[in-house]
């Protein structure tokens, strides 16, 4: 049986659309995934470069790292998440004050975590889409002087605010935000849910973390 020309043309058009459709829908997701990977690759290397720069004084290193970090991380989103169920009952002004205290604590704590890995190399190995604006970028951290297999470090990147932001990091499957939430919720449970007590404790910790360890 031979198809008439208009019918054949229409069939070809349908086939072409069917063939191209997955590409059209997959392209933005793949592009966003690449953006997330590049974001992690460039900025984590910049962070490690700051921490290993011996020309910088301790104060310069701390300030530069903090500026970089606070530009990459969605501190507010993480801070609110770590309050767990208490974010719903805490007064809004306490939540705002907590976000500020968490910012200082995170800057000090993250610097102390990353400072341990300045001699190691980080390689982006791929990424996974959790949701269209939520990606896990997989990396491997390896010590060139060790025969141990590289450590798996995952970065969670959100792109729903228009630019990529870091919301979590996992070392060997352990997510930092979950660990922080478990601590803060437990602390608040022991202190009648008083966010101000947590703020005072976090501020004290941030100061102590800024001091050289014994």
């Amino acid at each position: 049986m031979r198809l008439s020309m208009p019918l054949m043309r229409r069939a070809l058009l349908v086939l072409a659309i069917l063939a191209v459709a997955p590409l059209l829908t997959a392209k933005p997701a793949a592009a966003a995934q690449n953006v997330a990977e590049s974001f992690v690759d460039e900025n984590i290397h910049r962070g490690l470069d700051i921490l290993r720069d011996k020309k910088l004084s301790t104060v310069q290193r701390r300030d530069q790292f903090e500026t970089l970090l606070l530009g990459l991380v969605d501190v507010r989103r993480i801070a609110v998440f770590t309050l767990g169920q208490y974010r719903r009952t805490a007064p809004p002004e306490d939540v705002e004050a907590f976000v500020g205290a968490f910012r200082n604590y995170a800057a000090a704590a993250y610097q102390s975590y990353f400072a341990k890995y300045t001699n190691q190399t980080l390689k982006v190995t791929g990424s996974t889409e959790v949701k269209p604006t939520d990606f896990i970028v997989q990396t491997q951290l390896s010590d060139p002087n060790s025969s141990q297999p590289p450590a798996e470090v995952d970065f969670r990147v959100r792109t729903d605010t228009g630019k990529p932001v870091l919301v979590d990091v996992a070392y060997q499957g352990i997510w930092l935000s979950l660990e922080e939430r478990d601590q803060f919720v437990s602390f608040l449970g022991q202190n009648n849910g008083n966010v101000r007590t947590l703020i005072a404790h976090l501020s004290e910790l941030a100061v102590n973390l800024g001091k050289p360890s014994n």
Partner: protein
Amino acid sequence: MGRFKALVLAVGGLALCAGLAGCATAPSSPGALTINDPYEQTNRDTLKLNGKIDKYFVVPTVAVYFVLVPEGGRRGVHNFLGNLSLPTIFVNDMLQGEVSRAGKSIWRLALNSTLGLGGFFDPASKIGIPGHGEDFGQTLAVWGVKEGPYLVLPFIGPSNPRDAAGLAVDAFIDPTNQIAFKQHIWWSAGREYFTLLDLKGQTYQTIQGIQRSSVDYYSSLRSLYRQLRNDQIRNGRKQNEDLPDF
């Protein structure tokens, strides 16, 4: 030795019973990680006791070990202890149906026991067969046994009934515990002692860092232990669908 084995099995049996009893109330998804700790006060007291044991006995001993044994020697001890664990790892690989990983464990045992001079060196890692951990606690998890309530065990630290039972079964699986020889008790004690030195030596700085940056060290350790065990049970395979939404 017979008495020691009976004691281990009894403790394991009790722990297993407790683990099975805890099955009905033992969620392990990240969202439920903050709960399932009904013995929190006892656990906190045990953690304090362990801290004192560490401070007055373990840390000074580890310091002496670091002074007397150079880094190369400590690495040799670490490799040797790892090699001794390989038969137990192999059995657990097989019990979990991880045939490829079981093959790697056997290769590591063969290469490191021979070319690695009894396990003091690790030529297997150098040719691309890195080590991995596996234990009966993980095997139980793969078989569907839930973790049960969170526990802090004296001398051992974070655990749960499933992992405590796993420890006892691993001791039973270990071929060196099946060989009868005159000085076995000293061999066992020495092995446990060096395992403790090795473990504490490797984790001391990390633990110090966690203590220094924690708002609540107890709950930090609980969260880290649960997340780490879940990752080990999955053999590092990602489970992103369980991640919380921000």
